[in-house]
């Protein structure tokens, strides 16, 4: 929901580096021993309490999903995933998520470009508009899209309960991710480099492709990973919009929900484990990308 939700975080520095980074601009780096950053009894206790809470709230419940998914062994796990209705839901979810991510790679970069390089009255409003999809409660997002693309649409279209609705909902909720990862990188690119390329006779397209795009690639990749992850896990905005029709507009998270409602927790956990694994892969990918960027600038 945050403006920064889609932003690649700089990797966590070592506490010693932190002091170095803070003082490198002005003063000398303080010589300090390792003891300054190792745990004291108080901070050790704090870490214990924090880890206990984090485990109770996040780690144990998420582990429970994986344990529940393996309850019936591999064959039950695969059977749950291979049931035609689940397979259709997974196929729709992944397919639309890929499609939406592709649109976002293009539109997100274009929006970031306009926000950074273009100047026109009302641009500040667009800054807020970009973040609205993450800030709105997802159920409200569904209602919002329904008003323009549903049965009483002023455009005369009715895409409610079709796969276009799934596409639109994904597109809406993933709007900020690539914009917010690309924007800060674009801000830091020196205009001199582009001017130099232009003075050497490069066309605008060549400048974009050879000079700008390479430095944007890690940011676009992180944004795309976040956008894909968010799309496949989306639920709230589809409830009112897509009708959740089996084999046609039912997505993975709706499938999980109907398994839960039918008290089939093992099947629910099997589908959930897929979403969980994708989330883990995305988190690790982002960590790797941010470390690479930090290392190679």
């Amino acid at each position, binding site marked *: 929901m*945050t403006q920064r939700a889609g932003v690649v975080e700089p990797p966590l520095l070592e506490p010693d580096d932190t002091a170095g980074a803070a003082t490198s601009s002005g003063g000398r780096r303080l010589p300090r021993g390792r003891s300054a950053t190792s745990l004291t009894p108080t901070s050790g206790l704090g870490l214990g309490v924090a880890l206990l809470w984090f485990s109770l709230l996040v780690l144990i419940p998420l582990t429970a999903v994986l344990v529940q998914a393996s309850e019936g062994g591999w064959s039950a796990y695969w059977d749950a995933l291979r049931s035609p209705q689940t397979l259709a839901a997974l196929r729709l979810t992944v397919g639309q998520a890929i499609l939406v991510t592709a649109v976002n790679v293009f539109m997100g970069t274009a929006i970031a470009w306009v926000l950074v390089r273009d100047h026109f009255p009302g641009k500040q409003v667009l800054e807020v508009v970009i973040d609205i999809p993450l800030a709105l409660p*997802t159920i409200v997002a569904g209602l919002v*899209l329904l008003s323009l693309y549903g049965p009483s649409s002023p455009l005369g279209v009715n895409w409610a309960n079709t796969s276009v609705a799934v596409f639109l909902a994904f597109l809406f909720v993933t709007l900020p991710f690539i914009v917010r990862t690309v924007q800060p990188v674009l801000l830091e690119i020196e205009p001199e480099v582009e001017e130099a390329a232009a003075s050497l006779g490069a066309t605008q397209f060549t400048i974009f492709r050879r000079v700008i795009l390479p430095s944007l690639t890690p940011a676009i990749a992180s944004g795309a990973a976040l956008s894909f992850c968010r799309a496949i896990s989306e639920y709230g905005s589809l409830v009112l919009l897509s009708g959740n029709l089996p084999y046609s507009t039912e997505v993975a998270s709706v499938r999980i929900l109907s398994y839960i409602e039918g008290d089939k927790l093992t099947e629910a956990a099997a589908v*959930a484990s897929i979403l969980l694994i994708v989330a883990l892969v995305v988190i690790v990918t982002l960590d790797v990308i941010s470390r690479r960027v930090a290392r190679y600038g």
Partner: protein
Amino acid sequence: MGDTAVSRTTTQWTLRVLVVGYLTLLVIWPVALVARETFAHGLAPVLDALRQPEVIFAFELTLSAAFWAVVINTIFGVGISLLLVRYTFPGRRTLNALVDLPLAVSPVVVGLALVLVYSGRTGWLGGSLEQVGLKVIYAPPGIILATAFVSMPLVIREVVPVLQEIGTEQEQAASSLGASGLQTFVRITLPAIRWALLYGVVLSLARSLGEFGAVKIVSGGVAMRTQTATLLVEERYQQFGAVNSIIAYTAAFILALIAVLALVVVTSFRPDKGTPR
């Protein structure tokens, strides 16, 4: 340079029109339509809707769950940020990556995960908790847990970079002058991170008020008992009749208003405005 300048202007205009058009169709117009629909019959039906006991109850429940979730996330968030930035311990990097997990996991998976552990009937811990009189699933504690789960990383993500930036010199100076750990935190660290903390709290609050999927699974959504504002929107929209419809739109409008206000507060008061990290 004449031709280049002309083609640059053309590209600029094409992109500008494309982007503004795209955002209008995807966000601006639909949001405006919901606002118009809410007030289509004037203010009176909206005010009537706000006086319905179910609506009042849903918003009260939502506010109290969000309040507790934000309190928990603030204490936990500041604590874990300090630990991550100021100390070294085994597993620190893993913990740093894992605290982002709640933002990446589907709300439905969050709900399922909590049910598997805290359900009184089948959960790992739920049975024992129910024996000591604490019902979690289908009750307010479950709503608080689900809300705290989904908004957990927001405070941490705001506070960690600021802690890294301010460094430890002042804190060391304070403690070398004899300040206790608590004094150093209250006098030095807290003032330095106060804006980041405030943004984190505002973002958590907005996220907490709007949570839907995870809360739907853990709460059961029974009107006047466990139905939060977002669940009320869903239920009333799916029922027939003008009264239900206006209630759904009114609740949705208020939720949207809070979300947009939180957004405006954060974007306009952030000191590094225009250069999101």
